[in-house]
């Protein structure tokens, strides 16, 4: 039986500490200095966050090194939000250019963004063009690699930032105020909740429960620890099988509130007509981690787990529970006959 053959290896698997690096991102803050947009006014704060997507490329020429990356650009001003995700990810990019001639690293972020709210349509009339330019002395592209963060503005004052939005009626100019990613995803105390969608039982101990997580409404990840225990005996009490399997599965919630893997969770056991008696138990414990990216060890369609299209892993991600919500636990169990 497939489950049995995998149990042995799974039981002995050593846990691995997973690096929990957050997605590489660049954040620039500013205030509106003048605007033609009706929903912004001078003095409004604006935060630009560019999250790097995979595929960064660096090129070198005789007198300059250029790194460019496709990014997901989010702009926030109070309750107003715009995102490049609603236009086309390829419409946003950040470029770092180091010129050996004047030993200056220039950073250019450009994009077209649309209102992030699904209730506002993404049409040319409410999209904005974005331009953000910064320049710092020195080579911030060591070995031609994209740096882990923007240079510190206090350490490298060089050139006033050039930032503006181009929208209906004209440009909105932004005064540069600094760089701080901490404001973008502030960890809020969230109680993870779910709604029961269906729950059934059948012969030979079979059960099937479906729940749907309530969207936490904040960027982060729900990670659920699953432990499956199965004990089967023949009519003469001979133990046919006894084993445990455990793994972790995850649901991501993006900054725009979408859940790329949905928010449903099924927990099921089909029953075992070939065993006269037994017990099947599935224990789950789920925690929401605000601002946390999906750890790289989680894979969809992982053959070592039972999570199917949900990212999952047999390696304990070792996330600190103090950073997450209170755990939500469930136990589904059946004993037969």
């Amino acid at each position: 039986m497939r489950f049995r053959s995998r149990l042995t290896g799974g039981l002995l698997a050593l846990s691995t500490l997973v690096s929990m690096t957050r997605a590489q991102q660049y954040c620039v803050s500013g205030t509106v200095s003048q605007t033609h947009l009706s929903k912004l006014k001078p003095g409004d704060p604006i935060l630009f966050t560019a999250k790097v997507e995979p595929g960064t490329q660096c090129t070198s020429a005789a007198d300059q090194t250029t790194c460019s990356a496709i990014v997901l650009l989010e702009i926030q001003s109070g309750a107003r939000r715009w995102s490049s995700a609603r236009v086309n990810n390829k419409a946003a990019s950040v470029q770092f250019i180091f010129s050996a001639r004047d030993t200056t690293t220039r950073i250019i972020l450009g994009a077209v963004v649309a209102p992030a709210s699904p209730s506002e349509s993404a049409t040319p009339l409410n999209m904005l063009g974005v331009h953000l330019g910064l320049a710092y002395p020195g080579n911030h592209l060591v070995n031609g690699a994209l740096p882990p963060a923007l240079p510190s503005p206090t350490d490298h004052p060089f050139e006033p930032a050039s930032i503006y939005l181009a929208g209906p009626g004209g440009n909105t100019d932004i005064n540069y105020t600094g760089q701080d990613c901490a404001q973008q995803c502030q960890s809020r105390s969230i109680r993870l909740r779910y709604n029961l969608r269906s729950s059934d039982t059948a012969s030979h101990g079979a059960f099937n429960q479906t729940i749907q997580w309530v969207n936490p409404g904040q960027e982060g990840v729900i990670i659920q620890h699953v432990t499956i225990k199965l004990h089967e005996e023949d009519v003469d009490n001979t133990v046919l099988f006894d084993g445990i399997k455990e793994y972790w599965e995850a649901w991501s919630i993006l900054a725009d509130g979408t859940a790329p893997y949905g928010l449903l969770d099924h927990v099921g056991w089909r029953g075992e007509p070939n065993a006269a008696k037994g017990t099947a138990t599935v224990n789950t414990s789920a925690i929401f981690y605000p601002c946390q990216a999906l750890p790289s060890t989680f894979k969809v369609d992982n053959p070592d787990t039972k999570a199917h299209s949900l990212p999952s892993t047999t390696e304990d991600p070792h996330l600190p529970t103090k950073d997450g919500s209170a755990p939500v636990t469930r136990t589904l169990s059946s004993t037969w006959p």
Partner: protein
Amino acid sequence: MTKARTYFLYLALLVPAFLGPESSTQAEPALNPADQISSLVKQIQAQALSSEREKKAQHLAATVRTTNAFLDDQMIDLIASLLQNNDDIVRFNAARSLRYIGPRAKHTVPQLEAALNKIRRELSTKQFWTGTSSEDEICPALQRITGKEVGPGCNFSYRIDDQ
């Protein structure tokens, strides 16, 4: 620096404005929705790495979410062709894309039902199961496209407004 005054600017215009004439930087022009969808479907079908297929499939769904009003039947059929993909996560995102399109994808209902039968057959071989599968996007897609409270062949009504 010269600032463009039109309200809708693409990168091709924005980036050189900062760099000046000495720059050799090239920005990738934005594609129209049909070209984007066509390109993504081809990339998904040609991609050898499953992790890349997953990323492209998610990108496809995110793109369809914002551009579905511009997609014609040919593009809808192209998306529906991914329901036959071997990766369940690709089928998951193809169904999600068709859900975003809604009733205009009505002619893809037979393909959705075939994909539902396929994942049901796969799941029926499992002893235990947790998590999600393409069924969890196929049923909401059928629900939205047909306008029925429970999609044809599905077990219950899905709440589809918050994911």
